[in-house]
């Protein structure tokens, strides 16, 4: 019994050692946040919808993060900013500088995901994949749904959409 226990402990320790030695664990990536954007402030307090700022959802493959052209539509008129974050935005707007957002996750090259197919043609709600964004008070740092092919295929099978490989891998 003691022998088996010691074998087991050794096995587990060496497995963990091998894990770290031969490859890094997928930790959540630390991104530098330029402005601490609060979805709660913009959606609940100012009653905006997703597509007011994310204007490419229904027309493009990639939705993208809105940048200075969209923000300055409103923030250019706020000439005396109150909070810290508003002051930061005002600095970007007045110089017309691009805000350096960083994607914490990018769709890999071997798969093609098109926003337009899912929102405009498929008529899906934003919250189904992204969760309830109206409660978030700071920028997002991890996925709401883990990005595995199993999640996509399960939803496709449930809604009777084609699961042909080449529709997404080409």
């Amino acid at each position: 019994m003691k022998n088996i226990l010691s074998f087991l402990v050794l096995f587990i320790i060496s497995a963990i050692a091998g894990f770290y030695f031969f490859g890094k664990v997928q930790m959540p990536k630390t991104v530098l946040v330029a402005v601490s954007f609060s979805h709660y402030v913009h959606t609940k307090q100012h009653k905006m919808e997703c597509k007011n700022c994310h204007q490419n959802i229904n027309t493009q493959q990639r939705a993208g993060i809105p940048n200075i052209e969209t923000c300055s539509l409103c923030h250019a008129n706020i000439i005396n900013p109150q909070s810290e974050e508003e002051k930061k935005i005002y600095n970007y707007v007045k110089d017309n500088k691009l805000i350096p957002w960083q994607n914490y996750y990018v769709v890999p090259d071997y798969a093609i995901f098109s926003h337009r197919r899912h929102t405009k043609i498929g008529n899906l709600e934003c919250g189904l994949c992204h969760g309830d964004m109206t409660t978030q008070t700071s920028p997002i740092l991890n996925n709401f749904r883990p990005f595995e092919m199993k999640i996509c295929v399960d939803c496709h099978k449930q809604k009777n959409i084609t699961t042909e490989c080449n529709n997404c891998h080409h």
Partner: protein
Amino acid sequence: MALYGMVIDLNKCNHCESCITACKVENNLQIVSKESAEMGRVMQWMRLATASYEGNYPDVRPVTMPALCLQCDDPPCTKVCPVRATYRRDEDGIVAQIYPQCIGCRYCMGNCPYNVKVFNWYKEAQPIEYEKCYNIDVAVRVKGVVEKCTFCIHRLQKAKENAAAEHRKVTEEDYIPACAQVCPAHAISVGDLDDPNSNVSRLKSDYRKFTLQEELGTQPKVFYLSAKSK
């Protein structure tokens, strides 16, 4: 269901090689190193193959034709893939290739009688001026997968998406592969063989039609038109 085929008119083709460059640039093909090129591992999905020369000097003319994947209706390559990385799609008749699924055994390459499948032996560093001009719709293949011409299926998917967003069907003007789009002599036509009004259906019934190695029973969907008399 659509059935996409191609007709190449060899009496119009004047060997300018635009179709080959267009295929390479559209599909982000790899430029191999000089050592690999010497070993015959240049990656080309479409080649301008000289079969033979006919005639006596000085009336010698080469028999040349663009050779690409013939998108067979009974493909020998799909029958031997152990992981179903290549398969024939029923909805449009294109023989598709799934790069993440391929394990690189190259059994399909040996089975293809026309030698149109290409393998990524190594992943070479690409010149940066070529990398910046990659087509974003097409995945860049990794080391160890087999690839071949797919009739620019990414353009077909985009056309279907546009058509679905506008609540209509895919017409002939929506989808055209890169080689057919750039040919200066308009020698290459791609279309729906099931549609009796399309260009390809009309050209397929031309008396000059022939196709390669019909006796093997692969039922290819790329037809060549060539009249022997000059």
